[in-house]
């Protein structure tokens, strides 16, 4: 379960409106490498993690990503609050305004709505942890792109915090992967599944290799 605390993980106080920047930043809310995808990915994958460390790290990073989702949503909200429709339209948010007014809705920078197809939960801890390492790097790269597009220190400051967290998460996932690999044994990079073994047996029979 979760308990809500009435505070952000990192402060967001944006004085100047900038709808164009909001349109880019929203990709970390509902885009392919965004915080919603990250949180959902880790919180789903944790159920099938094999070690205490991996369960804890997925649980806790998945939880921190929810706090990041809130930070990104706050940035979008503050950047667009009270901006008239004609200005939103000029800044490339006409289509967004049509469907969502000034509300915060999970879409990518190009307007594609959030989909669970952005994430995987494979039941194979090695595959899942590798996906997570990649996800953290992709999110880091996205934050760097956003920092390159931004010129307001009020916007850049929380983006830098979020970027730094991706690096820490990458580090922790790498450590968890090492621990999991050690537990599964050096040779087992892939876990065999009973279904595949049965299939191999029936194949042998079919080809007359088994009496």
């Amino acid at each position, binding site marked *: 379960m979760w*308990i809500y605390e009435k505070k952000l*993980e990192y*402060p*967001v106080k944006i004085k100047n409106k900038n709808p164009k920047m909001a349109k880019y930043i929203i990709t970390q809310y509902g885009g392919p490498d965004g915080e919603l995808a990250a949180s959902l990915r880790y919180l789903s994958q944790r159920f099938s993690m094999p070690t205490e*460390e991996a369960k804890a790290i997925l649980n*806790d990073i998945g939880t921190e990503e929810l706090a990041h989702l*809130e930070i990104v949503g706050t940035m979008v909200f*503050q950047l667009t609050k009270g901006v008239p429709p004609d200005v939103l339209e000029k800044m490339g948010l006409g289509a967004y305004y049509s469907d969502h007014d000034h509300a915060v809705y999970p879409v990518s920078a190009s307007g594609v709505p959030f989909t669970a197809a952005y994430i995987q939960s494979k039941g194979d801890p090695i595959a899942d942890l590798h996906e997570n390492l990649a996800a953290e790097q992709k999110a880091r790269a996205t934050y760097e792109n956003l920092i390159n597009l931004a010129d307001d220190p009020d916007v850049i400051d929380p983006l830098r915090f979020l970027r730094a967290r991706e690096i820490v*998460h990458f580090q*922790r996932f790498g450590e968890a992967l090492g621990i999991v690999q050690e537990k599964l044994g050096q040779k087992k990079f892939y876990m065999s599944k009973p279904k595949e073994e049965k299939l191999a047996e029936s194949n042998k029979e079919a080809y007359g290799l088994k009496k």
Partner: protein
Amino acid sequence: MVKEREKLLREIMAYDFAAIDMQLYLNTHPHDVRAISLHNCYVNRSRILKDMYERLYGPLTASSPYPRYPWKWIESPWPWEYQ
């Protein structure tokens, strides 16, 4: 008063963040004694400050031990509203 409130909240946020960062580290280094004592130090400091904050300004969680009349949880500002 708004300034004082925000100052205290920022301090709580800083300690809580430090605790979260230590927590993640400890999940993969559960035998690091020094890190555990640092984590405990941040958590204890945060608890004291949160207690002070909730007495002075209102609840940080809905299950705050200092409920007052009328129900303060619904009072603004919400975290995304700080402007």
